[in-house]
Structure formats: structure tokens, C-alpha cells
């Protein structure tokens, strides 16, 4: 079993070709993971709620590969993809979703609360805007500690209407914090198209209110994510402050649980499916001669097997005990 850190590092080796293939493979894993999560949820084997990342894999991987494991990310309830991309194993994520003690948060958190300090995944927040000031604060710590690390706040398009967005952006700008605000603009906030709640199209222009650099990138293309992010990260590491990045993606699934997304205009999903991030990567890698149909099939089969094994294991894992519910209320030690 590899650790989260090893899984993370396996995406960034000395060989960039290997890395590209590893990223593709991880994207397949996320896709398969979400497919099975959805199935398990429908079958009643998972309770509560789930928010799938289908369509956002390129963005997930792009972030995981441009950030270092000692950088941090404050993400949201829609974070299976972030967790897996950043290094958490399908087993630890699935066990968490199933509420098992082997889950990344001991089964205490559930689908909305991923966490792994070894790869900088701060506990994801289920409150819109909850993670933004936290990311700014982590960046403040880096700045004071004179570290070169950066923090990322990762959130959805509709989250740009919450007060915490505005306040965090302004604070980060005035303090020149090494934080990057990443909008995952997947077009919807729950069941509402972004244009019904927000009177502008390009959300990243909101950075102008804080004299903050900003950019839009194609979230369906891992290379676009990587290069777009790199500039922002370099700026932050240089000490030149925050950036707002808007990654254009599309939420291929419903918002959560059983949502069928019937509110989508006809043809919209199909249009975006042509830009499916996995397809886009597949084509790019094939073009470069790094992939062929056989290899793709093999890798897809591997993803199926990996996720299946994770599920099998998670299912047989133990539940947390009553004592576990009381373990981490107060701490006598500083940790993290």
C-alpha cells in the first residue's frame, strides 16, 4: 500500500511523460470512483449525501500537479476528486464515505469532509465560503514563517456570491498573501444556472475589486490548468500576492444525491461532453504517441479493479466505536 504522499509524488517524477500518463490514469480512477459512488448511493449503501466531480478531473489533477505536497488546499464538499488527485487512496476516501474507521477522517466526516494533512488537504468545508478565509489564513502563516508554500481556496461558481469570498479576496490582496482563489465554474450552483444568480459572465473579473491579478482557464484541459495555475503560483511564491483563477468546467452529474439535473437546457450536457476532460487528455496523449487503444483499455480496467478493491475493502472495514466520537473534541497538543 502506498501512502498518500507516495501516490501524490507518483504524479510528479523525473519523467514528464510518465507523469502525463499517471495523471490520465488518476483521472480515470476518479471517474470510476464517482461512478461507483453514485451506484452505491443509489443502492442505499451510502447515506447522507454525495457531490460528484465527474467532468472536473482535469482541474483536480491540474491542481494536484502544480501544487507541492506541502502546499495546502481548502476545498469544499465536492471533493472526492480533489482528495484522490492529491494522493488519498480510493480506499481511504471510500471508507470515509462509508463511515468506516479506516476513512481519511475516521468515518466521522463523511463524503463532504475529506482531510489528509500529509498532502495538504485541509478538512473540506460543507459551508459555502467556509474554506476561503481558512486558505487565506494558511497563506498568512506561510508568509510569516517565510515559507515559500502557497494555499489554494477551491470553490464553486455560485460561491462567489457569498460574503466570505469578498472579504477573503480583499484581505488576501491587502496583505499580499500567497493564496490562489480557484473558482471551479461548473456552470451550476445546486439546481440554479450561474447566470440566474449572478449578473456577470466572467466571474474572475471580480478580482478587479481588489486590484488582484486574475485569469480564466479551460478546466477541461489539464495542460491549460497547469500552465494557467503555474503563473499564479509563481507569483505567490515570489511574494507578489494572490490571484483569482476561474476554471471553466461543467458538472456532468446532478448537484448531489438523486438530482437528475432536469433543469439543464437541452443539448448543454452533450455539448460539454465533447470536451470531457478525460476525452481531451486521451486525445492529447494519443496524439503524442503516449497512449493507444489497448493501453487505454488496460488502464480503464485497472481503474475499475482498483476502485472495486477499495470498495470491497471499505465494506469489510470496521465501524468507528462510540469512543471515537469523543476522541478529537479538545486536544492537549498542537498538531498539524
Amino acid at each position, binding site marked *: 500500500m502506498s501512502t498518500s504522499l507516495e501516490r501524490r509524488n507518483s504524479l510528479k517524477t523525473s519523467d514528464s511523460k510518465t507523469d502525463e500518463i499517471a495523471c490520465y490514469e488518476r483521472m480515470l480512477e476518479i471517474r470510476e470512483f464517482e461512478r461507483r459512488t453514485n451506484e452505491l448511493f443509489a443502492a442505499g449503501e451510502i*447515506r*447522507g*449525501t454525495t457531490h460528484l466531480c465527474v467532468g472536473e478531473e482535469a482541474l483536480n489533477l491540474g491542481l494536484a500537479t502544480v501544487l507541492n505536497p506541502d502546499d495546502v488546499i481548502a476545498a469544499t464538499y465536492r471533493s472526492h476528486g480533489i482528495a484522490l488527485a492529491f494522493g488519498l487512496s480510493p480506499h481511504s476516501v471510500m471508507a470515509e464515505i462509508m*463511515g*468506516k474507521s479506516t476513512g481519511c*477522517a475516521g*468515518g*466521522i*466526516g*463523511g*463524503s*463532504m*469532509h475529506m482531510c489528509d494533512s500529509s498532502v495538504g488537504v485541509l478538512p473540506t*468545508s*460543507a*459551508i*459555502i*465560503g*467556509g474554506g476561503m478565509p481558512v486558505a487565506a489564513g494558511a497563506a498568512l502563516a506561510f508568509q510569516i514563517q517565510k515559507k515559500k508554500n502557497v494555499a489554494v481556496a477551491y470553490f464553486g461558481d*455560485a*460561491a462567489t*456570491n*457569498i*460574503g*466570505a469570498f469578498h472579504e477573503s479576496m480583499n484581505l488576501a490582496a491587502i496583505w499580499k498573501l500567497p493564496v490562489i482563489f480557484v473558482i471551479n465554474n461548473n456552470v451550476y*450552483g*445546486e*439546481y*440554479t444556472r450561474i447566470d*440566474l*444568480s*449572478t449578473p456577470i459572465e466572467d466571474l474572475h473579473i471580480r478580482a478587479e475589486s481588489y486590484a488582484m491579478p486574475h485569469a480564466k482557464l479551460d478546466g477541461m484541459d489539464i495542460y491549460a490548468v497547469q500552465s494557467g495555475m503555474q503563473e499564479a503560483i509563481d507569483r505567490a511564491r515570489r511574494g507578489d500576492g494572490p490571484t483569482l483563477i476561474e476554471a471553466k468546467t461543467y458538472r456532468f452529474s446532478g448537484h448531489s444525491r438523486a438530482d437528475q439535473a432536469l*433543469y439543464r437546457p437541452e443539448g448543454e450536457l452533450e455539448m460539454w461532453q465533447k470536451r470531457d476532460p478525460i476525452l481531451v487528455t486521451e486525445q492529447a496523449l494519443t496524439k503524442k504517441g503516449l497512449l493507444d487503444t489497448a493501453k487505454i483499455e488496460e488502464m480503464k480496467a485497472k481503474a475499475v479493479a482498483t476502485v472495486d478493491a477499495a470498495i470491497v475493502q471499505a465494506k469489510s472495514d470496521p*465501524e*468507528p*466505536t*462510540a*469512543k*471515537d*466520537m*469523543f476522541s478529537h*473534541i479538545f486536544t492537549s497538543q498542537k498538531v498539524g
Partner: protein
Amino acid sequence: MRFRQAIVAAMTDEMTADESVIFFGEDVAAAEGPFKTSEGLLDTFGPIRVRDTPISEMAFTGAAVGAAMMGMRPVIEIMFMEFLGVALDALVTEGAKMHYLSNGEYSVPMVVRASCGSGLGFGSQHSQTLENWVAATPGLKVVQPSDAQSAYSLLRASIQDNNPVMFLEPRILYAERGEVDTSLKMEIGKARILQEGSEATVVSLGNMVNVAREAIKESGLSVELIDLATLVPWDRQTVLSSVKKTGRLIVVEESPWSGGWGSEIVSYVASHAFSALKSAPFRITAPDVPVPYSGTLEARYVPTAINVALALKEAVKENKVPQPWWITEGVSK
């Protein structure tokens, strides 16, 4: 009808009766509510009166305050009670104080509906009841129904009320069915005696009323069950009279052991019916932990009928105050 349908019915009836009632919140219009508590409202009352909002709880809660002051009767939906954590100011520090600060010149007839409570696997940030955020707010009423009938009748009363009302809906009840007599009126501030009894008084709120009911049955004792229904202003008279009759008080609540609303009741009764008490009044609560996700643990988080029944027996038969399970099991102090 189901609890959530009772909400819809109350909204429909009030919106029909009074043009000044408007309704907004996140995904309440086109999507008819994340918990389907506004089915048909957009269709029936149109997009002027039924609106989807951006994810901006502070803005739309505060907007309800302003609209209420200008003659409307806004009802808003806070999807999960926790989200008031980004908007408490608008309700508690603005809305609840406007009538006072205007020397009586403005009133704020608004209702903040919010789903609350645990039991559905929504985890630590989407499962609390959080009455404590709003309970010590002079100027704000706090209501929590326990079944479809009280959801219907109390929501109508809340919308008709001329003051801001926090209306807490136990999320776990949305799918539950119950008889609803739409002609039945309930008053804010009046507790419901759900069953009479002589050996003890159980006071409860929201879904814990149902747990308590089951527990009483299970216990085989003669216990008076009071559904508080309104937490602010709560029905001191009904509770006091009952305890004076039964001589015992047990509060069953979903909030944590420290800081939960039940202390208010126990404290008041201890002060004002002291000599009538045959044994120590006490609370049965959730433990002092954030709500855990794991189904096994979440099931233990709130008081269960079995635990409550045991506690009732200990209290009535042995005049004892039972220790909470986490102490008897030695998993916490």
C-alpha cells in the same frame, strides 16, 4: 400528508390568504426546495412572490427584514440551520431589534424557516439544531414543530405573527406522515400536552417529542408528555402546572449536554416548582461532540427511545438522575 407537504400547505394557504406573503431562498422556486418544501409555490404564485436567491444568506435574510418593514410578510428558507452562521447579524442584531429601535414605528413580520437536526448522515456542519444561536434574543420568537399538524398550524401562526419568527424544521421529519386538520389553529407560545400522565412530566421539542413518546410507551409508566413547540416565549405555565401535578421533570433534547435549550426549562422549574419536585429534574441530551457522520455513531448521538425509557424508569422508580450513556459506558467524562 407528509411533514414537508404540511409546510407546503401552510405556505400555500397563507400566500393565498394574504398577498403580502412572499417567499425566497436558495432553490426554493424553480427547483421547489432542496427538501421539496415548496412544491408548486412558484407555479401557483409566480416569480414575483416566489424567488430563488443567490447563495447570499446575509443579503437575503437582511432583505427579508427590510421587506417586512415596508409592509410585506417575507418567509425565507435557510436550507440548513448552520447557514445562519453567515447571517446571524441580519436576524438577531437587525431584524429582532428593529421594532425596539424604531420605538415601535416599524414592525418586522417575517419568518425564517430552517431545517435542523441530525439523523440523515449530513455530517458535523449540516446536522445541528442550534437553538442556542437564537434563543436569547428578545424580540425574536422561536418555534419548532414536531409533526405534520404542528408544522402546518404553527407555520401559519408564524406567518401571521407580526414579529420575526425563527421556524425550525427537524429535517428528519420531512418525509414523515401525519394527519393534518387545516382548520386547527395553534398559538405561538402554547405548549401541547400530547398525553397526560401522573408520574413524571417529559418536556421535549421537535423530533425528540417522537422519541420521548415511544420511550414513554416502552417504559409502561404514566408520564405526561409536553411538546414545547415554542421555545421563545415558552409556555412556562403549562410546564409548571404539569410538574406540580407529577412531581418530576425530564427534558429530552437533541442539543448538546452543555449549552442546550433544556437547561432553561429545568432551571426555571427548579426555581419555581421546587417544593413540588419529588426527585431531581434532569435532561437527556446529545453528548458534547460535533455530530458524527458514521451511521452507527449518529444513531447514538441523539437520545434513543430505549435510553430515554430506561432513564424514565430510573427516575420514577428509584428517584434517581441517570448518568448519560457516555459516562456509564466510560467513553467520556
